[in-house]
């Protein structure tokens, strides 16, 4: 059991839990995630590590309130105990001195990018944030991320599928203005990962994406999180979650994320009926 020390709603659909997990906090690195089990009957839910404090032995979990599991997590209050938290899982993101690094994020992806930004900054990079969201009300941690980056830009579009053009223009312009821009890292919803990879492929700009496929154990045992990258199958939980965005088989990725859509809807309606009673 892991005790919650702080619970807050960051934006209408995104929540933050700060949880005691001293062993994980001691060794966590940017790009890694935790598996969280809300209660005895809950799923094993992968959540990116958004921050950690080695001295206080706490980690930050930030998640989109979507299905049953995340709705259960969203109900936790400070002082409650979560069934289980295990990690850090996955390989840490590749951090080095690449000159100028662009971090593109949206939705819950803004959270996982924060430790990455710190890591890249420490490694001597110039760091630019490019943040995508429906509108101002869905952006969080702007102050934090401005503080640790060299520049910070936002693209706000009510229809996120229309944001590709704006992102394309901004990234192309950045490439022109900053010749040492040599790496992009993307975190957030599948569409954002896909569209940014498509844009940067044309610009021949190395791009790493943090994939979030369906997972069960998260320790390399089950293969639920199979993704195809450059023609080869990988297990995202142990070989990733960071992969070369230009090599990802996106059709397969989008499809495999929908594996249990019907059951997820069924579970949600059953859960909502129960909690409303």
């Amino acid at each position, binding site marked *: 059991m892991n005790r919650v020390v702080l619970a807050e709603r960051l934006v209408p659909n995104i929540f933050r839990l700060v949880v005691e997990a001293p*062993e*994980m906090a001691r*060794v966590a690195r940017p790009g890694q995630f935790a598996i969280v*089990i809300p209660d005895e*009957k*809950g*799923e*094993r839910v992968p959540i990116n590590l958004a921050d950690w404090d080695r001295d206080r032995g706490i980690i930050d979990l930030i998640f989109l309130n979507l299905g*049953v*599991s995340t709705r259960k997590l969203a109900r936790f209050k400070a002082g409650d105990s979560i*069934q*289980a*938290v*295990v*990690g*850090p*899982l996955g390989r840490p993101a590749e951090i080095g001195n690449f000159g100028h690094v662009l971090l593109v994020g949206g939705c819950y992806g803004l959270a996982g990018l924060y430790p990455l930004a710190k890591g890249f900054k420490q490694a001597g990079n110039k760091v630019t944030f490019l943040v995508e969201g429906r509108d101002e009300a869905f952006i969080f941690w702007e102050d934090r991320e401005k503080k640790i980056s060299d520049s910070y830009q936002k693209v706000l579009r009510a229809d996120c599928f229309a944001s590709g053009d704006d992102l394309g223009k901004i990234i192309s312009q950045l490439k022109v203005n900053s010749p040492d821009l040599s790496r992009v890292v993307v975190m957030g919803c599948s569409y954002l990962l896909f569209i940014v990879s498509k844009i940067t492929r044309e610009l021949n700009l190395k791009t790493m994406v943090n994939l979030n496929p369906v997972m*069960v*154990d998260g*320790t*390399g*045992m*089950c*293969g*639920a999180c*199979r993704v*195809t990258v450059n023609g080869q*199958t990988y297990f995202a939980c*142990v070989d990733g979650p960071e992969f070369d965005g230009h090599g990802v088989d996106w*059709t*397969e990725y989008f*499809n*495999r994320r*929908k*594996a*249990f859509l019907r*059951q*997820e809807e*069924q*579970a949600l309606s*059953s*859960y909502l009926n129960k909690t409303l009673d």
Partner: protein
Amino acid sequence: MSRDEILEPGLKEKLSRQRDQEWRKALRRDVSAKKRLESRRHKMPEQPAARRATNFLEVNLGYSLEMAREEAQRCLDCGDPGCVSGCPVAIDIPTFIKYIESREIALALATLRETNGLPAICGRVCPQEVQCEKNCNLIKAGKEPVAIGHLERFAADYVSSDDQTVIESACGQAQGEKIAVVGSGPAGLTAAADLARLGYQVTVFEGLHLPGGVLTYGIPEFRLPRFILNQEIDFIRSLGVEIKTNFLVGRTATLTDLSQAGYRAFFIGTGAGLPSFMNIPGENLLGVFSANEYLTRVNLMKAFKFPEYDTPVPVVKKAAVIGGGNVAMDAVRTALRLGAKEAAIYYRRSRVEMPARVEEVKHAEEEGIIFNFLTVPVRYVGDDRGRLKGLVLQRLTLGEPDTSGRRRPVPLPGSEFEVEAELAVVAIGQSPNPLLIRQVEGLKLGKWGNIEADPVTMATNLDGIYAGGDAVRGGATVILAMGDGRRAARAIDQWLRKC
């Protein structure tokens, strides 16, 4: 050093000393060998096939006391008990059986516990037909062997045990030195139990949220009910073993970290957690699962109780399972229980080469599982939404024997055919989970990525690091893993205390 020398120094003498006890002599006198040979082996009572195919309750119901006693009476208590040498942990089989014959079930269980930390589990999942029962002298007399597995299960279920036997070490009692066991499957739990009995302070680290390893995520409840497993794990805890779940050694901490935290020796029992796929087209379609994922969803996450439990599993009309081992049997019978109208095995060799336990195959057939031999999938077929709708299979014939001694399956060109299925489970084997073992610097690995360890002491090439079970063997049985754990515990004791 041989297996028997490290496990049970003086095993032969011990067996004959036990056999020469007055009560044993009296039993042999009371009932003649001729009479013992008259009765037939008692069948295990089971749930009727039609009913059990729709539930996850245990198939086997267990012997009654009277049945167990009668079955025990079939044992001749022979002077040369082949059964013991067929047992990977060298259980004193005649003694525990004769205790059952004398209605001393608690003593029977104590005898089992001396050498086997998990008798309720072994009685259920061991392939007795190729181990102890294969060497039963009744076979030479033209009879069926004594049902040793059923009797072991009976003893373990009939009485609860608070046995706290201390293992006498040639080195004297240990002084509570800390030892880390990585993985809480059968190898790890057995090593932990024996190390605790030798006087060590043992911590078992488990990456998942429940202990048991393959016993928890792999073996279904209809073969091994969870309350039985939990009782066995509680027993091991009662010996003083601490089990730390949600702690993935290799990520949460490295062996070096643990060593700095004061752990003096390590046993790696991380199992064969990496599922194999065939690398054929369509393997990443929705509906194609590794057996590990399919069984983990159902067994560990309880997806068979969805939506009461949150983790889903597909419920289909037609299920295809690729493979012929115990895991394949577990997967196909699970699919049936989840509601499949048709659940079929596709195996590339013929019936006689199937590695599954005889009892599992028999149960599966009774339940209506369809067996297709000498067939192998060549690709999976999807619909326009990327969901599996069928398999293209190829027929094979058996050629010359391969390195395993089994005849090698050879494809028959032009024999492809298609079957419908919305679920395919790939159960063709696993290799050792690489997460931890690849990051232990200098650890010698075999060609399948398995840890190389001394077959008797289970010592790796690194001082103080021992390994066993599927992490070494690549894909074996519960009992072989337990044998490794037992021998490693003794070898660790001898290494630590330099005796």
